[in-house]
């Protein structure tokens, strides 16, 4: 695995080096087309979410007159069967969807980091027990687990977040554990152990910073997963019915039968929004991958003498 450059040299006392590395990372992000596209889409949605009360000051769920009208000058994206403005619902929906997705994604990553570090650092029985737990949770099918958890817990936004974390942490823990395990075997960790560093300090200052890129891709992946899972949960009617989110918008679209009535403008925007956000996050994820793993980068020149694929390309032509 390719690591960020400052990895093996120092044991914690390096002040300026991580800063320079992150600056270099940011500059690489700026040069990467995928990262720029992804960040631009994300910024647009975050801006819309923040500006929702300014753009649509009225309560978007207020039931209006003239239901299910097609997009037009008055309502740019038409209205729902209940006469609500679809554009307002979509913009307002981004608040809850992004909020829940980001919070649940961050929490699931933190749990994953804790479990992964504990497994790698302590090893033996701790690793055995936590790995078993991780693998069990990985195997349990996510959506049915989400459903029974959400069905039994009192409905609300908090429940949705907790349930998403419960179903989402295991995959992160597995990835982070194997990465932490390989760093645990490095000499500088052994050196820190010998110098008598406290376990917590070794985990947080020696191991964690050196897996920053994996933590980042894990975080982006879990936010994507959380947004999708939340939408699925709400689509089944298990979310918080009082909040407006992309998932509940789709739930109402489906309940009101907009699909069979051919009212595409009711269900299209929220799904597109979910897809765009997930796509943007995935693009950032691939960008991070490409920057930190040179093997995945696109070859600059078309052919080089010892590249095996290039040789076969020539043979096939």
């Amino acid at each position, binding site marked *: 695995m390719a690591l960020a450059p400052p990895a093996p040299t120092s044991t914690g006392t390096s002040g300026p080096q991580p800063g320079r590395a992150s600056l270099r990372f940011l500059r690489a992000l700026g040069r990467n087309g995928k990262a720029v596209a992804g960040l631009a889409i994300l910024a647009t949605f975050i801006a819309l979410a923040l500006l929702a009360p300014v753009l649509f000051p009225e309560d978007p769920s207020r039931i209006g007159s003239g239901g299910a009208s097609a997009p037009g000058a008055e309502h740019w994206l038409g209205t729902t069967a209940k006469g609500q403005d679809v554009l307002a619902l979509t913009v307002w929906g981004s608040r809850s969807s992004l909020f829940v997705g980001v919070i649940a994604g961050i929490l699931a990553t933190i749990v994953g980091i804790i479990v992964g570090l504990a497994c790698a650092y302590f090893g033996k029985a701790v690793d055995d027990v936590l790995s*078993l737990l991780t*693998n*069990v949770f*990985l*195997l*349990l*099918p*996510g*959506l*049915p*687990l989400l*459903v*029974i*958890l959400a*069905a*039994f*817990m*009192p409905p609300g936004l908090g429940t949705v977040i907790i349930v998403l974390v419960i179903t989402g942490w295991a995959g992160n823990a597995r990835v982070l554990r194997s990465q932490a395990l390989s760093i645990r075997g490095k000499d500088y960790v052994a050196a820190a152990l010998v110098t008598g560093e406290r376990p917590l300090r070794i985990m947080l200052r020696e191991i964690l910073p050196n897996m920053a890129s994996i933590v980042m891709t894990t975080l982006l992946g879990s936010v*994507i997963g959380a947004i*999708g899972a939340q*939408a*699925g949960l709400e*689509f*089944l*009617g*298990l979310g918080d019915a009082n909040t407006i989110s992309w998932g509940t918008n*789709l739930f109402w679209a*489906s309940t009101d039968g907009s*699909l*069979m009535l*051919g009212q*595409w403008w009711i*269900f*299209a925007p*929220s*799904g597109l929004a*979910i*897809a*765009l*956000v*997930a*796509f943007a996050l*995935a*693009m950032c994820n*691939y960008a991070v991958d490409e920057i930190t793993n040179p*093997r*995945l980068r*696109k*070859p600059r020149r*078309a052919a080089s003498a*010892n590249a*095996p*694929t290039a*040789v*076969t*390309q020539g*043979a*096939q032509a």
Partner: protein
Amino acid sequence: MGFILRRLGFYLVAFWASITLNFMLPRLMPGDPVTRMLSRSQQRLDPQQVESLQRLLGVEGGPWWQEYFAYIGRVFTGDFGVSISRFPTPVSEVIAAQLPWTLLLGAVSLFLAVVIGNLLGILAAWRRGGALDSVVPPLLVFIGSFPYFWLAMGSLYVFGVTLGISPLRHAFSVGLTPSWDLTFIFDVAAHLILPALSIVLVSIGGWMLGMRNTMISTNAEDYILMAEAKGLRPRRIMFNYAARNALLPSVTNIGMSLGFIVGGALLTEVVFAYPGVGYQLLAAVQGLDYPLMQGLFLTITAAVLLANFLVDLVYVRLDPRVRVG
């Protein structure tokens, strides 16, 4: 053999954990599902429904461990209680009637996604920077970003409602009775295309990119260079040397992705009113049918664990290192 036994033990632990979770959930949660149920359901409950709920919630009396062992015993005899939304059918009967359709949908879409996705990945990695490598992955990642059910809604709207060339709902036409004759099989296939297609489209990108990335590492191996030096035909090197060795992570991924495929199938079924387990799950959620929800969870979990075990068996067959190690 040791590997297989260890995996089997692990799956048993996983299943035990899901049973225990099922047992604990209703007992630990604040608030009382029974009162919630009674307040939501306007109709009067039959004594048998009340009994089913009481068993679920452990109002039978006796110490908790006695209830616990009784619960495990009931699960292993397939007794999940009586469904509330489809009263008085037992939960196990409701599930048995629906499960085959979900298995059909899940298996067909998994098979198509794995085969097509891996093939695309092999070809993309073989011609780095070619059209397949630069255009298709971002496109598939974009399609893969849509929620399963939204893509299902979209395809149903385009092909079913607007164009009218595909059936709108259910797994077979009204009036047909399930049998093995050709008209029925074609009818089922016609109803299967759209739901399966939406799952395949969403999941194919992951397979392609996974395979592509493993293939890129494999292509850099010395034995590929050696094969080229020997002057083997590119097709032979690609499939028999590179792809064959890059396939192993994909086999492991099949096990890991089963849960997602099931989740996707459940939501897709809801959109198409496909008479599988997912459609039933929606009905269970709407009717607050806790016994049915739990039964569905356990059945789906058992199916996923079993499928994982089968994947392990295949893995042992494919990777000699596991057999020796």
